[in-house]
């Protein structure tokens, strides 16, 4: 199990797959292995939040985690208690084409056992509302890098809440603050991808 954890942290997808096969062969359950990988990724995420890990380390660990969970297969990609963590619908808002932050959040959510529906960048509010209708997410994540698209974020939140007042909305991006989240009626704001997972869990449990 130590080798598996270490391979996630150094982003070594091939070793992750080989270790998973070895451990499954030794009788470890897929859920247990997924838990172990999630724990490793969480450690990297915590280091990222503390400023001890950076974009390269976070990206490669999240990618390796994705390789590992794909290798286990969708049927097995459940935690040991049999649950999935939830479904995230995510998009960068209209007028903003930045996707690195949003993609990192997607990867980290997938790595943590969430199902992720990624609508891409520059997504109009109407498309997000339609996607909520279709996929019934537990949480909606909205991203913006530009101050000039924060108003699009506000408008998107308003449109979503008008139609789906109970859907939880989590926002993020460089200029976004908790104060802004409160003002536009979003449920929460997260400063980075790792923190976003914890906030999402709290919102879903609430």
């Amino acid at each position, binding site marked *: 199990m130590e080798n598996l954890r270490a391979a996630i942290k150094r982003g070594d997808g091939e070793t992750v797959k080989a270790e998973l096969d070895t451990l499954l062969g030794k009788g470890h359950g897929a859920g247990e292995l997924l838990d172990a990988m999630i724990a490793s990724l969480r450690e990297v995420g915590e280091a990222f939040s503390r400023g001890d890990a950076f974009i*390269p380390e976070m990206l490669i660990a999240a990618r390796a985690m994705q390789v590992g969970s794909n290798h286990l297969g969708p049927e097995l990609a459940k935690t040991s208690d049999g649950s999935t963590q939830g479904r995230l619908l995510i998009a960068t808002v209209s007028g903003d084409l930045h996707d690195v932050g949003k993609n990192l959040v997607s990867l980290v959510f997938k790595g943590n056992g969430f199902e992720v529906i990624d609508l891409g960048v520059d997504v109009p509010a109407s498309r997000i509302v339609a996607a909520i209708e279709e996929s019934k997410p537990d949480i909606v994540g909205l991203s913006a890098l530009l101050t000039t698209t924060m108003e699009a974020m506000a408008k998107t939140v308003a449109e979503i809440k008008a139609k789906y007042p109970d859907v939880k909305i989590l926002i993020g991006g460089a200029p976004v*603050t908790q104060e802004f989240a409160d003002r536009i009626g979003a449920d929460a704001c997260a400063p980075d991808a790792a923190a976003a997972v914890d906030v999402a869990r709290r919102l879903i449990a609430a």
Partner: protein
Amino acid sequence: MNSKERFLTTLNHEEPDRVPRDLGGWVTTMSEITYNRMLKQLGIDREREVFDWLRQTIDPEEDVLQRLGVDTRYVHIGRPKSWTFAPKRTERGLYVVDEWGCGFIKTPTTLYYNLIDSPLPKATIDDLDSHAWPDPRDPGLLDGVAERARKLAEEGQYAVIGDFAWETWYERAWKLRGMEQFYMDMALNRDFIHALLDKTLELHLAFLDHVLSACGQYLDVVIQGGDLAGQQTTLMSPADYREFIKPRQARAIEFIRSKTKAKIFYHTCGAASSLVPDFIDVGIDILNPVQVRAHGMEAKGLKDRFGDKICFWGGIDSQRVLPTGSPADVESEVRDLLRAMAPGGGLVVCSVHNIQADVPPENVLALYDSVGKWGTYPLSEGI
């Protein structure tokens, strides 16, 4: 004391007659939309066209620079002969491939061009030789450069700034690779990143040789940069910075010093305070944009720790105060910055990055006028 003397005094870490103001460079100018609104506000009946197609920003005009009390004047590179900006209409919006092979789009909802296609996402080190690189010695790049620089230098009124970032060797590298792939390679495919950065730096040095040979002796400042940090931390670890970036920064700076006595301005957005000692170490004279709302970038802390060794250029918050504050808030932001960073000189004031299209023109005027109002040395006690 004229603008040039004022400017050189402050860059020499001494107090001039008042705090200098900047507008008009690569990352210190203004969105075309805001500029034209400001012209209207000032009662000036004309419109300015976009100068930098990528950022949709303008090159401000002389009467506006004088009205705002700007102490800098820019020497920009000319348009390349081998490439012309000619966007195509596509379903998504206006699309253009630049001279490096990078594809950019401006959709109906976006305010400027954004990178969407990178030409080298899967390239190997060997592939780098066969990529169609632009000519860093394109003769068009020199159009008007020596004439403008010499004229400004001979007039001696304003600080002469060589706007020669050329999209920077560092950011160019990730634009060619794609940002995510680039940062993953930084962990898993390090030799490739070294080879790619060697290539973009080699081209950048050839470009600097080209332009500085034409005008180096006339310049007071050379603009360089490359974003190394985000809102919370640096994008890469300090160790990776010291392996990938710092030695190349040192080479670029050494080269610039061999061509000109100008001071070196380095732009990196974000929470870069952990790298400032390295910047000082490689010989960067000026840090821009001093993103005061990023983690660890509070003005007073930076000034106290590094103010005797590096100058600060920028500092007026563009993430909250300029777009959403009132003119009074802007004035208060200017006073806070001056209180923290103006003592002892070493400060040039402008917005943190280009003034975006969501900034009301009265806030732009409040920025420049407040520096005029409060920026006289000796600083007033009540500031």
